[in-house]
């Protein structure tokens, strides 16, 4: 059975392009057609520029016909979370604050992808300024989970995950500050990778929390993840926090590394709040690895219990400062009835930001205030060090750590919207990875009885993406979870 173009993997599309079975224009047209067919229901996109995408596709085909093709990604459309700059395209962060903002420059990842011929395709929805776990916090309306349109796709990169699952792009980029790639990947049944902090340049990524943010790919397969990582990883002189390290050929490494591996199961990650169906799916995956000769070790990450608290201090502190630039003075929303400069700040920000963004700015301002900073921010940084130390200690014994990605499959829209704390707990398994700066990946590992995808999280060593991808790849080789697709046509559009 052959997949329609819009459900093929990047690797497959790439080989069809190179054998000239298809052209990039045909592929791009197929993606556009699919998007037009389903996005009224999914609403993954904030915007897309059909003419621009087709012009890029045409240029790619011309390169190919004159044997000047730029590599495996040449001619492949890639969707961008609407926090990553693409020159001449809107950059909104799904916020009224930036509703009409068009970026005048390319992010480093955008430049890199353009450099290898990939087609920048569309601006994908998110929780406003990447703050949220359901994509309900978008100022432009929520994105729906393609597997059940009444449910959330996860967040904050919900648009990136949903677009991929719905066949609206062969691959997408997201960003992950506390789980914003891995959790929506799990909830939408795709592969999502959050690389090690510092592996990918953040230049051109709208900052939420600078010390936690990292760009990463959403793909149908682990191999595709390696292909995208090859294109976007590496030191950038424009980002002082990007790390100077040798970048291997991640795709080639997939085939070289075979295991068996020593895998750690943190006992703290399988406690209260974990959905039994999710627990079962993860346990099955562990059994699979065991059957392949992997050594499974119970490990302890004792400071995990502080991770959510620490995260909401550090991330909010940084965001309170990062978002100060949105003031209505130079660009973005400016209140029409301001009397003086203070009034302009107050009104522009009151009108431009949504409730969750305001909540986090206020929280972050508070934890940095004089008299409170030592008790909150400084202390949180110390605990953060302990959380990282827990992981590094564990890696003396194991090659990777296995956990669920999300405690539950996709929940219903509105279910947690009124309870920020319940929403924050969605990221309980993913947040520690950001605090520790480690690479984490979510792959599909099963479905709930009601047909919702379940994700398995693999956490690797710092800059150990090659090994991490190989561990995931070996599982994927013998499981077909990722090849299922949602039936959007059969569903009625949700509100």
């Amino acid at each position, binding site marked *: 059975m052959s997949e329609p173009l819009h459900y093929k993997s990047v690797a497959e599309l790439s080989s069809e392009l190179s054998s000239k079975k298809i052209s990039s224009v045909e592929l791009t047209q197929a993606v556009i057609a699919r998007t037009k067919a389903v996005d009224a229901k999914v609403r993954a996109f904030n915007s897309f520029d059909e003419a621009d995408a087709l012009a890029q596709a045409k240029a790619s085909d011309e390169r190919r016909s004159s044997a000047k093709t730029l590599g495996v990604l040449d001619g492949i459309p890639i969707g961008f979370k609407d*926090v*990553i*700059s693409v020159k001449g395209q809107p*950059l909104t*962060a799904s916020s009224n604050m*930036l509703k009409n*903002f068009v*970026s*005048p*420059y390319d*992010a480093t990842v955008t430049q890199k992808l353009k450099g290898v011929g990939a087609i920048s395709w569309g601006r994908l929805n998110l929780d406003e300024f990447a703050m949220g776990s359901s994509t309900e916090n978008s100022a432009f309306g929520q994105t729906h989970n393609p597997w059940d349109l009444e449910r959330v796709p996860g967040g904050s990169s919900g648009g990136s995950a949903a677009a991929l699952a719905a066949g609206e792009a062969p691959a997408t980029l997201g960003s992950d500050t506390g789980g914003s790639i891995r959790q929506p990947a799990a909830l939408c049944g795709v592969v999502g990778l959050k690389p090690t902090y510092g592996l990918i340049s*953040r*230049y*051109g*990524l*709208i*900052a939420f*929390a*600078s*010390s936690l943010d990292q760009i990463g790919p959403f793909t149908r397969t682990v191999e595709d993840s390696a292909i995208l990582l090859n294109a976007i990883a590496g030191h950038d*002189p*424009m*980002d*002082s*926090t990007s790390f100077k390290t040798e970048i291997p050929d991640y795709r080639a490494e997939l085939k070289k590394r075979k295991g068996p591996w020593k895998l750690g199961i943190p006992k703290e990650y399988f406690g209260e709040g974990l959905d039994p169906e999710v627990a079962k799916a993860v346990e099955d995956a562990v059994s699979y690895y065991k059957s392949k000769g992997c050594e499974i070790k119970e490990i302890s990450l004792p400071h995990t219990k502080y991770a959510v608290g620490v995260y909401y201090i550090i991330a909010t*502190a*940084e965001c*309170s*400062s990062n978002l*100060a*630039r*949105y*003031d209505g*003075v*130079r*660009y973005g929303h400016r209140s029409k009835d301001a009397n003086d*400069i203070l009034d302009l*700040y107050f009104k522009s920000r009151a009108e431009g930001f949504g409730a969750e963004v305001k909540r986090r700015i206020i929280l972050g*301002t508070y934890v*940095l*205030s*004089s008299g409170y*900073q030592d008790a909150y*921010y400084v202390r949180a940084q110390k605990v953060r060090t302990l959380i990282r130390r827990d992981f590094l200690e564990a890696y003396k014994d194991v090659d990777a750590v296995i956990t669920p990605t999300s405690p539950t499959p996709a929940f219903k829209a509105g279910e947690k919207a009124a309870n920020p704390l319940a929403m924050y707990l969605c990221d309980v398994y993913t947040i520690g990875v950001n605090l520790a700066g480690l690479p984490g990946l979510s792959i599909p590992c099963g479905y709930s009885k009601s047909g919702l995808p379940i994700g398995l999280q693999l956490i690797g060593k710092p800059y150990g993406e090659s090994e991490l991808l190989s561990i995931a790849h070996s599982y994927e080789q013998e499981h077909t979870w990722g090849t299922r697709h949602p039936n959007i046509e059969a569903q009625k559009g949700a509100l």
Partner: protein
Amino acid sequence: MNDYEVVIGLEVHVQVKANSKMFTRVKTGFGHPENTLTDPVVLALPGVLPVMNHAALDAIIKSGLLLSCDIAPYCKWDRKNYFYPDSPKNYQITQYDKPICLRGNVEIELPGSARNVMGEHKLIPLTRIHLEEDVGKLNHAAFDSLIDYNRAGTPLMEIVTDPAMQSADEAFAFLTALKTVMVYGGISDCDMEKGQMRCDANISIRPKGQEQLGTKVELKNLNSISYVRDGISHEILRQLSLLKSGGKIVQETRDYDGQTGTSQSLRTKEDAHDYRYFPDPDLMPVKVDDAWKARLKAECPEMPFDKQRRFMKEYDIPYTITSVLIPDKSLSDYFEATAKLCGQAHAAGNWIANDLLREIGKSGEPIDQCKIKPNHLAALIKLITAGTISTTAAREVFSEMASTGELPEKIVERKGLTASASSDDLETWCKDSIASDPKALAEFKAGKDSAINAFKGPVMKAAKGKANPKLVDETLRRLLAL
């Protein structure tokens, strides 16, 4: 006044002379069309990141080395959060708890009892020096305020002194000395008119003998070194008269208007900001190792006052000449090169302090643009000493050199300025001159030696400047002794 003691501390901002801004590659500059020295980073567009300018860090470490500061083992960046439209990010990247330079001092010279008398020297201790980024400029019109971000992001050093100065004169001397050091080190031109150096002063007074500092008032917008002196004097008098009339000093920030010589309150302590400083997560700390410091140490020039003391000792030139030469590093270097080439430091000093400075003043160009190089001037001085040309001829050669850049020997030859009159002619001219001025002759005979000069003018005139002055003097004395 005698019952009180003044305590002054200064916060001086100095723009680092750098090709690019503190955290991005766009150029720095002054006087460019508004908002042309900007880029996405300067404008704080969504998604941009700062990258540190290493040359600016070099400059501040060099400043620290020049001013005997302790250099921190690493450079760490913090965010100072506050909303103001001249600050595009609404936070400023600065150094809060770990400044790159700690302690150190600036040597100053107080005014002497007369212009030709060296004043007292003192060391003013520094608290710290740190690096940060400058802000933009607001231009207020009738109904709008316009912002120019050209200055935003320019590397800026903040130099903070201990509360250690006791008079407006000391503050004036401090800024003068600091500026000289900064110019010597190539760190900044410190042109206050261009905002390259800006100064705030903290001023308090206390009864003599009291240990605790009085309530301080911060004075802002001291836009020139003279305004600093005037503003501080004004503030000291304001505080004194306030205390004498039974009033109380309020801790506040005041704005000094140099034009009118008045100040008014900007804000009081109650309005103080909470800047919520925290380490900037976009910038990694940078290690400053010994090799780095050693490299910069090697680039450090001799300090101005050290150079002045050396000139006075080594070349035996007077204080007045050194105080003309020293403030301008290139001028003092020019002097030293010339003195070495001709072996006559006094003559070199005089020529430079008088003729050369006048020449430069005319053209308005910096000394390295002047066509008269040290080897030109040294050669000219040698020609005079050797008696080859007269002083009058030398002045002509000098101005010719200034316009053509030729060597003096060539000009002398081309213009036939050699003191080449024959001894017979000289003898005749001298006799004529003596004969034509019996009054001077009588004076000379009566013992007034300087009366001889009266005979020289007519001789030179008759010789059309080509007489060797030494020879004229000898001939006149011989004839007068007869």
